[in-house]
């Protein structure tokens, strides 16, 4: 039995040898490919931004000379303290409020029997679907300093009415628009938390509040910290709301400052903006480092829970109706700016006035006649779908390598794909513009450019969706298919992909909707040949064609909501919960 003829040994050995190389090479090659792709997407813009920040004063003929003056200008600016102060207040308040709101929603949805959970999910996808600019405009219509339609009635009742263009308004509105993201990131961990840890504390005699304080909060701390850092990163980069709502209240943040510094002279000097971007990257990288630490900790924590685990819903008793009312309230608040915008779009005149009775399609016909409107929509859908597909796939493959291979340095993929989260959109857009103007490929002036930038910009978010989903799948599941004879590609395609489909769909929708509504990158990169919806909206805003803006915004919102609703419905029908 142990004697083998040379005839059988020869091919067997050869076969064995080739097999020895193949899988390793396959994984390594995939790793290298993903690393190179991610590197090309992420590193040049980063390097370019840093370089630009050190070469201020460039003109059309020559680049600026190397120096630190951009940083000097940044810090020496007489307004630096005010700007830093405003930014700090806004960042801290808005991110904390978003965390509290989103965290509370996540807790109640995941862990209690509150009524009206559907409203919370409604908020999430409304928020996905509505462009930030429309939200801001809608809030100005509702609560604008001069002509907010809701202000007189509220004032009549309360004796005071909130103003959209104020620090309070800015913080609350911004927090409302981030809460859904917080919700999505926390609802999973909240659900996965071993309820018996809390129940054992309850049976020990601790009150619900003590349990929350001494058990739940410390247990969730890593996840919460991770999300907090993510929200802070976003808050520091927030652009639309501070610009639209903050400026007229005299609130100045770093991002709006960048924006106006780019607009100071006719030939903009990007050094200051880049210096600011670089500073953000340094600051936020620290935050990101904390985030990675925090999530690593949290994975350690969750492994503790035993195998017999069934999440129990806390019975809120009659309070569950109150929680439902709050959820409905949040839904109404999210929907309100859109409704305001839809209503305005049918009014011939802007503002409050007495034109309620007048009804007009005029604004819609104006939109229909707007130049390149259909090209813009087509482009946006293409770019959004492309970016969503590529970013999700890239992150999926990267995560696959990170959690399933033993290739050295695989963790670097995670870091690499997470970096763009700290580069402000405008700066990233600029870097892509400068870079791809010089790349001798027909990328500049095509949709590819915008798409590439979106992929880089949204990969960090796609990563946050995809990674936990893949980590949850027991390695046995794919090992079993390997033993059954499937190669790596088949394992990925037939086994893993279908299993992480809910996360893939979630990630896709997130990137798609955000790419379609993104202004900061698109406005830096679009060209005559590549108008997109977001820049058209921006145009309407700048043109002062507020009626058309309202009409177009309403159409987009309704279409997005319909699309989002359809996607959610389909996903649900297919048995995925998003």
């Amino acid at each position, binding site marked *: 039995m142990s004697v083998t003829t040379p005839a059988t040994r020869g091919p067997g050995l050869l076969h064995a040898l080739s097999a020895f190389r193949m899988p390793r090479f396959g994984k390594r090659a995939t790793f290298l490919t993903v690393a190179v792709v991610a590197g090309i997407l992420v590193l040049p813009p980063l390097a370019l931004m840093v370089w630009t920040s050190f070469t201020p004063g460039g*003109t*059309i*003929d020559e680049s600026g000379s190397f120096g630190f003056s951009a940083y000097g200008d940044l810090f020496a600016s*007489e*307004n630096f303290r005010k700007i830093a102060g405003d930014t700090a207040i806004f960042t801290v308040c808005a991110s904390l409020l978003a965390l509290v709101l989103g965290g509370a929603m996540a807790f109640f949805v995941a862990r209690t029997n509150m009524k009206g959970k559907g409203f919370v999910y409604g908020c999430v996808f409304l928020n996905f679907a509505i462009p930030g600019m429309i939200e801001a405009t809608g809030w*100005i219509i509702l609560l*604008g*300093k*001069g*002509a*907010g339609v809701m202000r007189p009635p509220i004032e009549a009742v309360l004796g005071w009415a909130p103003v959209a263009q104020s620090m309070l308004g800015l913080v609350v509105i911004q927090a409302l628009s981030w809460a859904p993201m917080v919700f999505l990131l926390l609802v999973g961990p909240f659900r996965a938390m071993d309820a018996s840890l809390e129940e054992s504390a309850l049976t020990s005699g601790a009150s619900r509040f003590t349990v929350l304080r001494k058990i739940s909060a410390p247990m969730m701390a890593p996840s919460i910290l991770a999300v907090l850092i993510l929200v802070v990163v976003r808050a520091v980069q927030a652009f639309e709301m501070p*610009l*639209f709502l903050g*400026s*007229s209240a*005299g609130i*100045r943040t770093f991002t*709006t400052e960048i*924006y*106006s510094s*780019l*607009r*100071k*002279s*006719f*030939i*903009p000097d990007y050094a200051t903006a880049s210096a600011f971007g670089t500073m953000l990257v340094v600051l936020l990288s620290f935050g990101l480092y904390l985030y990675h630490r925090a999530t690593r900790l949290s994975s350690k924590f969750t492994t503790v829970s035993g195998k017999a685990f069934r999440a129990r819903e806390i019975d809120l008793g009659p309070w569950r109706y109150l929680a439902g009312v709050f959820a409905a309230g949040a839904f109404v608040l999210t929907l309100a700016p859109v409704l305001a915008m839809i209503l305005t779009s049918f009014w*011939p*005149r*802007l*503002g*409050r*006035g007495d034109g309620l009775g007048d009804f007009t399609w005029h604004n819609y016909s104006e939109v229909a*006649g707007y*130049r*390149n409107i259909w090209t813009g929509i087509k482009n946006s859908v293409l770019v959004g779908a492309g970016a969503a597909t590529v970013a999700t796939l890239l992150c999926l493959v990267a995560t696959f390598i990170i959690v399933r291979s033993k290739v050295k340095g695989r963790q670097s993929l995670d870091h690499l794909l997470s970096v763009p989260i700290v580069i402000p959109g405008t700066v990233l857009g600029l870097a892509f*513009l*400068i870079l791809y*103007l*010089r790349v001798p490929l027909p990328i*500049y*002036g095509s949709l590819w450019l915008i798409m590439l930038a979106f992929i880089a910009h949204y990969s960090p978010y796609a990563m946050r969706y995809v990674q936990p989903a893949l980590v949850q799948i027991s390695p046995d599941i794919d090992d079993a298919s390997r033993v059954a004879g499937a190669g790596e590609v088949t394992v990925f395609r037939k086994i893993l992909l279908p299993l992480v489909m809910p996360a893939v769909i979630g990630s896709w929708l997130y990137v798609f909707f955000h790419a379609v509504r993104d202004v900061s990158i698109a*406005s830096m990169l679009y*060209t*005559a*040949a590549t108008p997109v919806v977001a820049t058209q909206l921006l*145009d309407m*805003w*700048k*043109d*002062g*064609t*507020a*009626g058309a803006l309202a009409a177009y915004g309403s159409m987009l919102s309704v279409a997005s909501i319909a699309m989002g609703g359809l996607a959610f419905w389909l996903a649900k029908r297919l048995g995925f919960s998003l």
Partner: protein
Amino acid sequence: ACGGNDSSAKEAGASSKALNYTGSDRDAYLAGCAKKEGSLTWYTSLAGDVIDDMIAKFNEAYPDVRVDTYRGDESDITSRVVEETKAGRLQGDIMELSSDAYRELAATGVMAEFSTPISSKYSDRFTLKDDNGGILGIGDRASYVSFAYNKDKIPAKDVPKTWDDLLNPALKGKIALTDSTTGVRLLGNILTNMGDEKGRAFIEKLAAQKIRIESVSGSALAGMVASGEADSSPGVFRNHVAQLTEDGNPIEWVPLEPVTANVGYAGIFKKSEHPCAAMLFTDTLLGDAGTEIFDSLQYPRPDEDLGFTSWVPDETFKTPEQYQKAFTTWQDLFESSFR
């Protein structure tokens, strides 16, 4: 890289020929060659219907030439032109931009010399020439920026007639301004026309009126005044107000003399790859058809008399450098006074 230079030199030669063709068959020649070119790209800071109307007019005559537009405000366009030029991949053929930004770009040498019979209809004041007297751009329209107010918000008696009336205590907290170039030029107007010292004193008092600063374009600001979101603003475009009034909004425009005039210049890029089409489109912009469209949308020719005195910001300055320097001063003043 050498080859690239070569071919671009050749192209420049070709475009130079088209732009300065004076033969009697000029129209036919340009039309034929434009048809071959097939398209052109127009960089413009114009807003609203004027763009569509202009393209429609052009396509009436030349249906085979597609016109793409890149719409942005002055800094969008200048920065894009600068970056594209640096990289040698300028996408545009024609530019239509307000005079100061136009001059600035022209000074860097990106604009081509051209000659068209229509140029004779324009006064020298609104023709930008290089040292050799070649035409680099022609002012095709003007828009006037001054005071606009919401009739429901400001009673007639408080409506200012002069700059000094802006200091009326009744207007305190009711004046808005954008932080775009439009807002900055307002200070230029005051400093230049009142004199530096008097102007600064005036601005100080104006700041005490609690000016509300919005980060929106001038046209969006007009919309805010129309809706009542803002009460009034000395930085609103006349043509925007006209449009809004037509739609029935309670807004009115009042000239505070001298009114700041934004003169739009049109011209052709040196690196234009569609010189014939560009030339023809420039002709349309500058010609009677263009003027008609501009007029209908309240963009008069720059030399038309509207019954008030006006001031073109860059006109008082010899070189773009001087203007840029002054502009920076205004901007700093804007920052320190109003924010």
